[in-house]
């Protein structure tokens, strides 16, 4: 890396805003109010692409319009386990049909299209997940260069098979992949590369990363109307950084659909995400509570000054499932529906299987994604890897699973459970973080903003802020 400027970690991090402004063209400062509130809608509109334009760009890029499939056998099995008259129809949006095999293509398409139109010669994304493959695939289609920076290895240079597979996929699309050891310094590398190369920063949390997913929510409502003659009653989204649920929620609203929006994450409580020792003791690299909870309760912790992904604005309910349950549902999806997909993307399916059992038979529950599977990214290599790393694997009751120590595959489908997380507590936690961020007392504008950011009312925000101030002054 050649750079006449000071490239030490401290110097590069100090130039963060300047680097990101050049690499994204978005002047985030423009949307600030000076305190907690900022112009969220204005920021999302700043991409300059309307919803219809995003749809047009995605069609041009081979993205979207994926099939919505009814999971008749999985629904029937859920019904067998449910009280009489209960057990909703489960549909799944087969997002694996996108060019690089996941819904992340929606997030990448407009970002890469925009980068090309704005005259950038390449794009950069910092991610170990499907998003890297999506950006690399779109860059290949649109003739741009691409760099993907992955958090990949522990200090022994041991990497999860799933992440190594993503690296392979990115390289297959012609991208350059930098594979780092565990730690937040990956952001330093990304900034240094952006400064060196002048590439576009295709951050997952940029407005492009969110508006690209609106089409998913919109399409699934249209398809549900066509297939079943009615709107879905509930939609389940795998939740990590928040872009999936935010974009889907916005798409549902655009289609005038008021379905309950449920976020689902894999429970990895107790594992520190930046720990070298814990890195290979988890079998999910995304879609888990290690991202899901911190990003929901404080979205502005990402690699952009203000995140477009604000899950608590749209999420009505949040549940967790255990690793063993997701691997189990991945097996059921293959053996009962003939769809080999996932595993990570099946987090929402595992939750849906249980949630459907408490909904009436004629209700409709949509699982809004699948993702590609293959060597490295499949229950067999991922569970063998877990076993190799000392994780106890057995059949039993997944409720007994301890993240980092065991993975328990349900010995019966009735043991698959979606466990509710207290969403009021999460909303309160967002307010606590906002108070910490604010250098002054929240204004009326801040209160209105926080009510939107938590899908609550100004009264609730005022009351909770009062209680938090008392707590703080204790």
């Amino acid at each position, binding site marked *: *890396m*050649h750079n006449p400027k000071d490239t030490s*970690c401290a110097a590069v991090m100090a130039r963060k805003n300047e680097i990101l402004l050049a690499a994204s063209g978005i002047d985030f400062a423009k949307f600030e109010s000076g305190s907690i509130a900022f112009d969220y809608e204005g920021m999302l509109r700043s991409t300059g692409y309307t919803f219809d334009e995003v749809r047009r760009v995605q069609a041009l890029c081979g993205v979207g319009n994926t099939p919505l499939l009814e999971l008749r*056998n999985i629904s*029937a*099995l859920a019904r*067998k386990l449910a009280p009489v008259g209960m057990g909703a129809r489960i549909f799944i949006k087969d997002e694996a049909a996108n060019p690089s095999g996941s819904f992340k293509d929606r997030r990448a398409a407009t970002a890469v299209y925009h980068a090309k139109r704005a005259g950038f010669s*390449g794009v950069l994304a910092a991610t170990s997940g499907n998003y890297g493959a999506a950006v690399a695939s779109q860059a290949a289609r649109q003739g741009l*260069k*691409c*760099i993907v920076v992955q958090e*990949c*290895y522990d*200090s022994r240079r041991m990497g999860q*098979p799933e992440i*190594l*597979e993503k690296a*392979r996929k990115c*390289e297959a699309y*012609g991208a*350059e*992949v*930098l*594979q*780092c*050891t*565990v*730690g*937040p*310094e990956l952001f*330093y*590398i990304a900034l240094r590369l952006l400064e*060196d*190369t002048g590439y576009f920063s295709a951050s997952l949390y940029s407005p492009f990363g969110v508006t690209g997913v609106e089409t998913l929510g919109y399409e699934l409502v249209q398809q549900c109307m066509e297939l079943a003659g009615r709107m879905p009653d509930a939609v389940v989204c795998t939740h990590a950084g928040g872009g999936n649920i935010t974009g889907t929620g916005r798409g549902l609203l655009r289609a005038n659909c008021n379905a309950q929006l449920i976020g689902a994450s894999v429970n990895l409580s107790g594992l*520190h995400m*930046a*720990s*070298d020792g*814990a890195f290979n003791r988890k079998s999910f690299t995304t879609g888990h509570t290690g991202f899901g909870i911190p990003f929901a309760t404080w979205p502005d912790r990402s690699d952009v000054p203000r995140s477009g992904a604000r899950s608590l604005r749209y999420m009505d309910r949040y549940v967790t499932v255990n690793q063993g349950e997701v*691997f189990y549902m991945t*097996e*059921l999806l*293959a*053996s*009962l529906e003939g769809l080999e997909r996932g595993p990570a993307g099946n987090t929402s399916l595992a939750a849906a299987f249980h949630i459907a059992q408490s909904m009436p038979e004629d209700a409709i529950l949509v699982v809004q994604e699948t993702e590609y599977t293959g*060597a*490295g990214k*499949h*229950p*067999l*290599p*991922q*569970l*063998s*890897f877990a076993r190799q790393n000392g994780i106890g694997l*057995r*059949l039993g009751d997944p409720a007994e699973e301890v993240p980092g120590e065991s993975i328990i*595959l349900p010995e*019966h*489908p009735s043991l698959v459970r979606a466990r509710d997380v207290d969403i009021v507590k999460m909303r309160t936690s967002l307010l606590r973080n906002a108070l910490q961020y604010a250098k002054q007392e929240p204004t009326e504008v801040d209160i209105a903003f926080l009510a939107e950011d938590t899908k609550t009312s100004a009264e609730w925000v005022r009351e909770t802020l009062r209680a938090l101030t008392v707590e703080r002054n204790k």
Partner: protein
Amino acid sequence: MIQQGTWVTIRCQILDASERAAGIPTDTAATPFMLWVKGTLLADAEIGQEVRVRTATGREEAGVLAEAETAYPVGYGAFVPELSGIGPQARALLFGGGEDA
């Protein structure tokens, strides 16, 4: 000797353990921050030597030559017997067929 022009992987130490970010877990803080990247070797070298490579995007990078023609290690892993009964049990529950469900 690895020949110039070979597709190789290099290892770069970006930060020493003493330079790691504040607030990271102690096990991570005790290790250097490393990265690996692939490229075309710009001059003949031995494994373990400091080299320069040209990456897929055309950048030049320096680091220690880790290996030549790195293979992708991904596969389907070992057989996992715990998985093999899941489909049959579910099919038996749904369609019958004498499985003990």
